[in-house]
Every structure is written in C-alpha cells, then in structure tokens.
C-alpha cells in the first residue's frame, strides 16, 4: 500500500471537496462552465491552466467567497454557503494583518473559535515552531521577508486544522530558492497534519513536484481538460526532474497549456504571425 492509499485510509481523513456542475460568471462573462472536480480526503491536487481561465474563481468558490447559484460545492458532504474555518485560505499576497504581531496573526483562528487568550497564544507559538519561525513571534509582518510572511500565513491557516487548505499561487511571488524551501516545508506540514490541499499554480514543475493529481483547466470559461495522476514516488527529490515519467508528464502539460493559451489569445482577437 503506498503512502497515498494509507493517507486516504485514515479513519479520520477529512477534506473531501466535490465541485459539481459549477458555472460562475461575472457580469455575464463566464469564468467557469459546468466544472466537475473532486478532491479526495488527504489528497494534494494542483490546478494548472492559462491565466484568466478561472482557477482562482474555482478556489474562491470552495472558500465561499463567490456565490455559486449554479452548481454545487460541498466539503466533507457539507454544502459551502460562505467562508468558514473548515477551509483554510492562503493567498499569494500573504495577507497577514499588518497591525498584529506574527504571534497574534497565528493566534487569530483559535481566538475566533473562542479559545482563551493564553491557550490561543500557546497553540500559535507551537505552530510558529512548526514553520521554523519561533524566533520572530513578536515582530510585525512588515519586518519579515516574503518567504517568512508566507510561512506565517500557512501556520495561521493550519492552526484551525481545516479539512482542506486552499492555496492560490502561494509561492508565486517568491524567488526560486525560497520557493523550493517553501515547497519542502509545505509537504512536511501536509504529511504531519493531514487534510487535503487544493493548490493553484502556473508552474508545471511545481505542480508535478507537489501534487498527487494535476488538473489542467481549459482557456476561459474553465473546464477540466486533463486530470493527471502523478505516479512519481514520494519524497520527490531534486533529481525527480530527470525521471522519464516526470519529463513525459511535463511535456504533456506544457503542450496542452500552450495550445490553450493560444486558443485564449486567438479568441481575444489576437493573431499569430
């Protein structure tokens, strides 16, 4: 039995996301059309696709930030009616509260749940240790590097033990070295804490390095174009890139993305020479 099967077999496994027949449009302009997508409990799923194809919209629908009158979104069987602490969110722009210290940012979730101040702070300290930031607990976010801020953001989301962690290009603003380190950190936390992750990226390497499944969206309005199980064993070290299976999957993804980007471009009236 591989690690994934074991993870799914956990009796307490949470984080099943089911998107059925979801259409979302903004001012009559369709962003998603009849999207079907399922994330199994404990699964790491990456969404790939050309920019503007509706990846963020799909994520925001699961988070409860966009109304979904057409179609249904459920998390662990519960229909999504609005944002809630059972679904954690991490944005590319870190989005920490600038007026709270790092510790207070992480303690926010437990405090909203009604935890006593001391208890919330203790849990927050523990989670800061988990992301290697025990030493900056009393600093304000603005004094931290981007990578550190994003680790705080992840700790702040995970402290609530959400069934599913939603991440919208979380490492997109970081430099390559920091990104590699953040990917490792995320995989370690996922392994320790469990739950499923729905992760948007436009970086094919990142998707293949992280995901159990890569889902490729078509150009807008977004539909699922390819649902690819990533068969590479974990952990996936740097030299996974040399694995023929990795190379094949990457080629397939890149070809489809290029094709979709071209279609999106042409639909907008652009022409290739």
């Amino acid at each position, binding site marked *: 039995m591989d690690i994934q099967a074991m993870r799914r077999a956990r009796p307490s496994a949470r984080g099943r996301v089911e998107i059925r027949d979801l259409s979302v449009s903004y001012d009559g302009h369709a962003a998603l059309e009849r999207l079907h997508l399922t994330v199994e409990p404990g699964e790491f799923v990456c969404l790939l696709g050309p920019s503007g194809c509706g990846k963020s919209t799909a994520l925001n629908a699961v*988070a*409860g*930030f966009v109304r979904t009158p057409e179609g249904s979104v459920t998390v662990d069987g519960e229909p999504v009616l*609005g*944002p*809630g*602490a059972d*679904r*954690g*969110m991490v*944005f590319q*722009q870190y*989005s920490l*509260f*600038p*007026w*709270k210290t790092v510790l207070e940012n992480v303690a*926010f*979730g437990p405090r*909203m*749940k009604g935890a006593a101040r001391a208890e919330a702070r203790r849990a927050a300290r523990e989670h800061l240790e988990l992301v290697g930031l025990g030493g900056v607990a009393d600093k*304000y976010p*603005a*004094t931290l590097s981007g990578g550190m801020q994003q680790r705080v953001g992840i700790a*702040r*989301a995970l402290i*609530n033990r959400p069934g599913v962690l939603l991440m919208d290009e979380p490492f997109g603003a970081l430099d390559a070295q920091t990104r590699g380190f953040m990917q490792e950190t995320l995989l370690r936390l996922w392994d320790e804490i469990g739950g499923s992750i729905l992760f948007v990226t436009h970086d094919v390497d990142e998707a293949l390095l992280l995901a159990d499944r890569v889902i490729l969206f078509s150009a807008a309005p977004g539909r699922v174009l390819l649902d690819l199980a990533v068969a590479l064993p974990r952990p996936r070290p740097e030299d996974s890139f040399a694995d023929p299976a990795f190379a094949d999957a990457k080629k397939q993804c890149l070809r489809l993305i290029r094709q979709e980007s071209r279609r999106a471009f042409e639909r907008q009236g652009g022409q290739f020479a």
Partner: protein
Amino acid sequence: MSLARFPRLQRAGAWAAPLRAAAAGAATPSLKKLAGRWLLRLASLLVFTAAWQYASSTRLHLGFVTFANVPSPADVFSSFVTLAGSGKLLPHLGSSLARVFLGYALAAVVGVALGLAIARARLAEDLLMPPLELLRPIPAVAWIPLAILMFPSAEASMVFITFIGALFPILLNAILGVAGIDSRLIASARSLGAKDRDILFEVVIPGAAPSILTGLAIGMGTSWFCLVTAEMISGQFGVGYYTWEAYTLQNYADIVVGMLVIGVLGMSSSAAVRQIGRALTPWQAPN
C-alpha cells in the same frame, strides 16, 4: 498600508525622529550631529526674533507693508508677562480649550462612527452620503451666522462651529481608510472563522486606523481655526476673543500675544494627537 500613503504622518515622524533618538539616550556618534541640528534650529528662531525686533523698533517701511504699528518682541513679551500675572490668561485658555475639546471630541466620535457605517453598509451610504456631500464644501466659518440663530447660547454655537470644522476631515479619512483595506484581509479573517463583529473590531478599525488618525490630526488643526474665527465674532472669553478685543482696544502688543498663544495651543494639540496616534499604531513604527 505603507506610510507613503500618509505623507503628513511620515513627515511628522521624520521631524520627531531626532527627538526620539535623543530621548532614548542613544549614545551614538550621531549625538553630536543631533546637538548641532538643534543648535541650528535655535539659531533660526533667534535670527527670526532679532529681525522682527529690528523691523519694529526702526518702524521699517517697505512701501506696501509697514512695521510702524507692529509691536516689538520685547513689548510682546512684557504684555505676556502682564497678562499671565493678571490672572486673565487661564480663563481665556480654559474657555478656548474646553470649546475645542468638546467640539473636537464630538466630531471624532460622530465622524469615525459615521465613516465606518458609510464605508461598510450600503444602506448607510445611500442614506447619509447625499446630504453630507452637499454640506461638505461649505466652510465651517460660513456656518457662524446660522449657528448663532440655531443655538440658545454663543457658547453652544461656538462648540458647534468647532465640531463642523473637525467633522469632515475626520469623516472623509475614516471612509477612505476603510475603503483602502485590502479585501483579502477581510476574506482571510472570514476564512479563519471571524464573524461580522470580529471583522469590524479586528480588521476594519485597525485597518482604517492610520487614515483615521490622519483625519484626526487634520481635524485638530481645522477645529482651532474655526474656533478662533467663531470667538472673534461671538465670544466673551477665549484666545480668539482676546486677540480681537486687543485690536479693538488698540493694545497692539496683546494682539501678537493672542496670536502666539493660539499658535502654541494649536501646535501642542496637533502634536498630542500625533503622539497618541503613534502610540496606537505601533506597527507603523519606522524601524
């Protein structure tokens, strides 16, 4: 949430930086430089006073402006000593301060509360914004005649003028402050389990705080401005009234005493507001 959005606060911060560093007892090589800068500032004041003394004592006449009737610094100083000794200074100061702080405190409460409501609730915006937009361009000073008719006492009308003067900068900056909050912060808070009440106290108010404090600092300035004008017209005590009375009684040195007292009061209240603001927003500390 960068300081660049609040050039006033930023500049104030830069100006006070040497003070803070000195207060912290920073025994650094820059201490000498700091002392040098303060000496320079002192010298600037002395030169200014000396030029004034020269112009007034020689009754300098520059064609279109004349110093013939301008009292000298020495006259002003002795008038101030007389006023301070007469026991009349405190009642004047007291009435002005009481009016400003009453009007200003009302404006702060009403302005911030309305601003938060208007920025957060569409209903409040639709109900309140049209009349406020209409009243906003009217300078507070233009309210004086109507205020005298509306209120039973001159006292109440002056407090009202002070209130109107401070209200709009505070209100508008509160609205701008809320509008400027990154919507992702509110989204994040909701995803972490925050309810409407938590959003207001944990996100909206602290998020708008820097802008609200800018409004409060501007409002302090405008409320002094409006008060002094109102006192000149309808007061019986207060530094504005004192200044105008000095003119009508041709006590020219007292005019300048009144002006300087107004200047010092306005400056210290604004500094106090900024200082409180800085203490309330420690995350904006320039470190």
